[in-house]
């Protein structure tokens, strides 16, 4: 297993902007190959969605990918096994909703992630106040729990979230669900700066980052970006590993030139 935070810190120290690429586990026949291609094309880490029937943080594209995955029979166990078998050479985080974790059992889920070489988890409907049981199990299994800071999060809370986040801090670019946006507003810069005031952990911006130009703009202040819907849409359109790798290559180039 590659531990997420040291890996990202080392790359940041080397002057590199960080690219985290999201794919919904099980969404299409060649999703594993697509993830491998994404890693080879310059993603610094990959985030794998475990589909949930009621993804309330997700916009239409990720929702559709989740429906495809569930229709194809994807289960949490199968997605985790497939990730293990993919032998990725970058760190992996899973993103799912809390009921999937709760149903499996906190310790069982944490152990199965660890056994699959998955070193981090993002559970967006599990806020700080309810984090306890999962965080304990995840820490014991050395699975980093990445927490989110939103534009609406007040300063004292930003401090508490950043103190508890592991791997990196996920700065939510704007109020809303996942999905492609025309522009990133000033609230993106604001939220990143507020996080940076209280932590030296890597800060990555997600939710609405959809183009190479936006990724570069976000990285003028942030350490990196998380790109989901724009990539998943290409896979939904049948682009497969080639289209995924090409898009990730464009993002990489924009960040490296930045």
């Amino acid at each position, binding site marked *: 297993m590659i531990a997420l935070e040291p890996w990202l810190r080392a790359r940041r120290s080397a002057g590199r902007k960080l690219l985290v690429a999201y794919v919904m586990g099980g969404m299409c026949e060649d999703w594993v190959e697509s993830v491998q291609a994404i890693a080879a094309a310059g993603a610094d880490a990959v985030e794998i969605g475990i589909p949930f*029937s009621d993804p*309330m943080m997700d916009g239409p594209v990720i929702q559709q990918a989740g429906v495809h995955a569930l229709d194809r029979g994807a289960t949490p166990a199968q997605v985790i096994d497939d990730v293990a078998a993919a032998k990725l050479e970058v760190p992996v985080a899973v993103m799912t909703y*809390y009921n*999937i974790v*709760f149903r499996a059992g906190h310790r069982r889920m944490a152990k199965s992630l660890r056994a699959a070489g998955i070193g981090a988890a993002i559970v*967006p409907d599990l806020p700080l106040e309810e984090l306890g049981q999962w965080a304990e199990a995840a820490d014991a299994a050395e699975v980093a729990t990445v927490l*989110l800071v939103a534009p609406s999060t007040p300063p004292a809370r930003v401090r508490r979230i950043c103190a508890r986040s592991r791997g990196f801090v996920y700065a939510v670019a704007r*109020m*809303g669900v996942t999905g492609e946006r025309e522009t990133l507003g000033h609230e993106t810069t604001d939220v990143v700066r507020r996080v940076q005031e209280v932590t030296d952990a890597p800060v990555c911006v997600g939710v609405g980052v959809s183009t190479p130009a936006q990724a570069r703009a976000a990285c003028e202040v942030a350490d990196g970006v998380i790109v989901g819907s724009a990539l998943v849409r290409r896979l939904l359109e049948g682009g497969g590993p080639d289209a995924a790798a090409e898009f990730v290559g464009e993002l990489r180039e924009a960040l490296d030139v930045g």
Partner: protein
Amino acid sequence: MGPPDARGWFGDFGGRFVPEALVPACIELEEAFDAAWADPGFHAELDALLCDYGGRPTPLTECLRLSGELGVRVLLKREDLVHAGSHKLNNVVGQALLTRRMGKRRLVAETGAGQHGVATATAAALFGLECTVYMGELDVARQALNVFRMELLGAEVRPVTSGSRTLKDAVNEALRDWVATVDHTHYCLGSVMGPHPFPYMVRELQRVVGVEAREQCRALLGGDPDVVVACVGGGSNAAGTFAGFADTSARLVGVEAAGGAAASDGIPGVLHGMRSLLLQDEAGQILEAESISAGLDYPGIGPEHASLAASGRAHYEKATDAEVLDAFRLLARTEGILPALEPAHALAWVVREAGRSVPSGSTVLVTLSGRGDKDVAQVRELLAENREAR
């Protein structure tokens, strides 16, 4: 039935499982509600609206002919006579007042059968608030008349095409809207579900049903009824009713649709911001509830109901679609009252259990949570189908 703990838990159920972006809004709402609920001025304003606009107090009707048929004494708490046709108005008027106190200008709501959507649209019109109602595409088709009513009241109805296209998906869409609009929008949740403080707040706003009914029962009977029955989807009319009787010796019964009986068939899980009993599969995917009543097609129940079930203070039973249709017709024929299909579940249980687990001669209070006008067309079709099937 008291408040939950500081984090919104009723025993092992409740809590606040929402994305970080919504946590500050939930805290703001909690503080606004606590302040309002401790403010006699807020209660005076709310009570005046419920009286002068809503038509409260609602009567307690003794069903002489139905009682004669069943051999048990049936009393109806007549929430069908509240303005806009159901108990939902009690909740939305309170939340609209809070919306104004919080300085917000827009309401979003989910609706199943359309009763909560109509109530929210009604309150929005009364308070001059913008209003968007999310409704599953299947329910839009089943409840076309209610959609038109909401539109007449100035609300925008957005059909939801994701997932099972019913109530649970309407909640998802309303939450997604709220994440993006929370600076000026209040999510006017219709039942005792969702993240803290909604389950507690909605129960308190519906408490008036139980408090009135208890006083009316005491005036009529000189004591409490033996059994108190209400239907349960999310469970708001049941929670409000039970709140008036939890400290009496009355047997409390919640009746769910057999095709969506989370209290009976569910297992603990987390959905829509709460830990409760949910219909779900081995992996934790939420299952679709299915009944003739759009208002009860929800795969969970409010967390306080899960807690009442666990403690044994309340019991949760099921009624089948066929039993519900029979009860609907029975009340119409014997009492001249068309119940909504939702409370027809509560009646169906009474009809089935009269002379069995409800001994002859018992006194039974049933909350008639809404009127059946909205369901007449659907009942007509169902009865026609049944005739053809025979």
